[in-house]
């Protein structure tokens, strides 16, 4: 497409409604969509906390102890809880949408949506289990 988008010609008598700033409150799925987009902020938040943790770890046991103490403050606990809920929402909504983007055909027949969703959830459980095993082993 050309660099300049084409718009329908202006016609003085046609009525064009402006999109309201509050369009995403018009129905529940719009609101759900905007919330899902917003989850990216919380995913980024977890990434930043993780980087902060690595930095503290590199600085030695004292810095790491301080980092752990900070994590236990009510403000960070509350933030973590909210972020966790958003990340959970992020994961679940994207897993449920996966079969739309992934069409797998086996012997000419389309693999049913529930199988694709199921495999995603199964992979999630197995990976979470593996991480939990590594962390809780000691």
């Amino acid at each position, binding site marked *: *497409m050309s660099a300049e*988008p*084409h*718009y*329908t*010609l202006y*016609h003085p*008598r*046609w*009525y*064009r*409604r402006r*999109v309201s700033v509050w*369009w*995403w409150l*018009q*129905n529940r*799925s*719009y609101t759900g*969509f905007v919330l899902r*987009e917003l989850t990216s902020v919380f995913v980024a938040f977890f990434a930043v906390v993780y980087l902060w943790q690595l930095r503290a770890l590199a600085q030695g046991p004292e810095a790491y102890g301080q980092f752990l103490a900070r994590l236990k403050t009510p403000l960070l606990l509350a933030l973590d809880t909210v972020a966790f809920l958003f990340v959970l929402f992020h994961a679940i909504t994207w897993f449920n*949408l996966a079969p*739309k*983007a*992934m*069409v797998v*055909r086996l012997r*000419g027949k*389309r693999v049913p949506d529930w199988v694709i969703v199921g495999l995603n959830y199964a992979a999630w459980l197995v990976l979470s289990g593996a991480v939990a095993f590594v962390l809780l082993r000691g």
Partner: protein
Amino acid sequence: MPSTVELTVARYRPEKESEPTFQTYEIPFRKDWVVLDALNHVKDSLDGSLSFRWSCRMGVCGSCGMKVNGTPKLTCATFLSDYLPGPVRVEALDYFPVVRDLVVDLTDFMRKLKQVKPWIIRKEEKPPGEGEYLQTPDQLDVYKQFSMCINCMLCYSACPIYGLEPSFIGPAAIALAQRYNMDSRDQGAAERLKILSEHDGIWQCTFVGECTKVCPKHVDPAAAIQQYKLTGATHWVKSLLLPWGAR
């Protein structure tokens, strides 16, 4: 069962109004009536000045798309009985300029549709004497869903991205491009790639998913777009790794 129901219709008469107003009509309620029947009743018996489009009244032509109680619907397939006790609010589709009352202008879509080349492209046409291009039922099955589109524009009216970014190619046009890309007889995918994978194509879509929900023919344009994102991204990676072999 009520004997009448209120029909609230958006009116826009450019010669005397600067923006749409609502007019309410009391119409007889019949359980076999769809919203389009109610509009035709208004036009025939109550107010001949009401303007709206319709043709086949059986969900095939795609002319009678309007918003019913805020949701884009084919009015020929939307029963009044599902909206009892009323009132039933009918408005023109969102995001298209309103020409009059419930009639919108679709020039923008028509131009975009043409850009995605929704027809079978062959590198070399074989002479008609050599026969048809054959296709198996399995090959048909791959794209059939996307071929059911009737251009009713409900998906555009449900897409907030199209409202906010009018240059977006939009759900139906991309689904129809995919319909031809996935057709085993077509060889034009590379020609469609440019328009589809540029800024106003698939990457404008943030997967709201409402286009699929409102589609009366179960085309699932949201899936068509997400699947093409995968194709577009794969092509991009290939062109990086194998600059000589990807085209």
